[in-house]
């Protein structure tokens, strides 16, 4: 029963996906390619590439695509996407509930205060990791970064900024 297996696999992926999309990739690889043999490593690599090129969380994008490829219909997509979303939805609901109950608790505050620098540091690392040759291909890319930085800092609409930078990309790199 491929649907049940797909559901269980993505439930597992959703459960253990700590630390963001990239940490999930090896788990996805293991479930889809190694354990079940639904796709080849190359097929999955293509799907992951597309998941990175499209908006939205990689794990969700990848689940929708893999679900369709494995079953050949939309139900596979719905099942995989639902399964990968269910564990984080449940866990985050519990966390949020307790957060609002314990907001003023001293220990809770202590934990949050110490976690803040960790999380902000992770964000800094994410920005640094993206500062590579793939991002900064030439001087115009650096110009886009500088203009974007000032724009975001001045609270320019971020969605509009993405649309404009995509248009700039079409003009510069096509």
């Amino acid at each position, binding site marked *: 029963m491929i649907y049940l297996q797909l559901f269980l696999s993505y439930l597992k992926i*959703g*459960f*253990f996906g*700590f630390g*963001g*999309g990239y940490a999930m990739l090896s788990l996805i690889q293991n479930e889809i390619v190694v354990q079940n043999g639904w796709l080849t490593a190359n097929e999955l690599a293509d799907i992951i590439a*597309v998941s990175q*090129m*499209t*908006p*939205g*969380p*990689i794990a*969700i*994008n990848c689940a*929708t*695509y893999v679900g*369709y490829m494995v079953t050949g219909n939309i139900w596979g*997509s719905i099942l995989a*996407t639902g399964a990968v979303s269910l564990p*984080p*939805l449940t866990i*985050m*609901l519990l966390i*949020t509930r307790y*957060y609002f109950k314990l907001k003023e608790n001293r*220990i809770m505050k*202590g*934990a*949050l205060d*110490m*976690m*803040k*620098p*960790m*999380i*902000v*540091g*992770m*964000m*800094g*690392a994410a920005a640094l990791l*993206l500062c590579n040759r*793939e*991002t900064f*291909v030439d001087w115009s890319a650096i110009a*886009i970064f500088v203009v*974007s930085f000032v724009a975001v*800092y001045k609270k320019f609409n*971020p*969605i509009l900024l*993405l649309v404009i*930078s995509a*248009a700039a*990309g*079409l*003009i*510069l*790199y*096509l």
Partner: protein
Amino acid sequence: MYPDIYPMLWTLFITFFKIGAFTFGSGYAMIPIIEAEVVEKKGWFDKDEFMNQFVLAQSAPGPFALNTAVFVGYKMRGVAGAVASVLGVVLPSFIILLLIAMYLSGFRTNPYVAAALQGMRPAVVALIAVPFVNFLRRMNWWQVALSIAVALVIWLLGVSPVYFIFGGGIVGVIWALYRK
């Protein structure tokens, strides 16, 4: 139990649909979008609570965008609000990827897509770098020092961020108990 403003489930859905449709590159790049939509436009959060939600959303498993949707949705409208927000944030991904899987097998190698993405990449870095700087400015000196140290260790040594999140939580709890 809910705050004075009662946003309709539909508003939550649409707000997170927008966020889902424009989160490129990394979940962190959505922070300015969330801030613009949820903190400034709608006033559902103040900045401190936004920071706390950021910490919680990052320490739970699963995509940052989804966790944020749960937190905001639950705060505004309980479980129904969380579900509406999650549906909103997941649906753009679902629709776009399904269309690509069904009809657009050439998407990955399309030169227009590649050019547009090339233009967006530096903007995405800015969308992460600005909130990073803003968060630093709201912290005290040792938190700033720690943040920068963590950033460098993850970046240069490739250590998994999970250790830092849980380590930070445990140290924070011990410190709070010790100071009693």
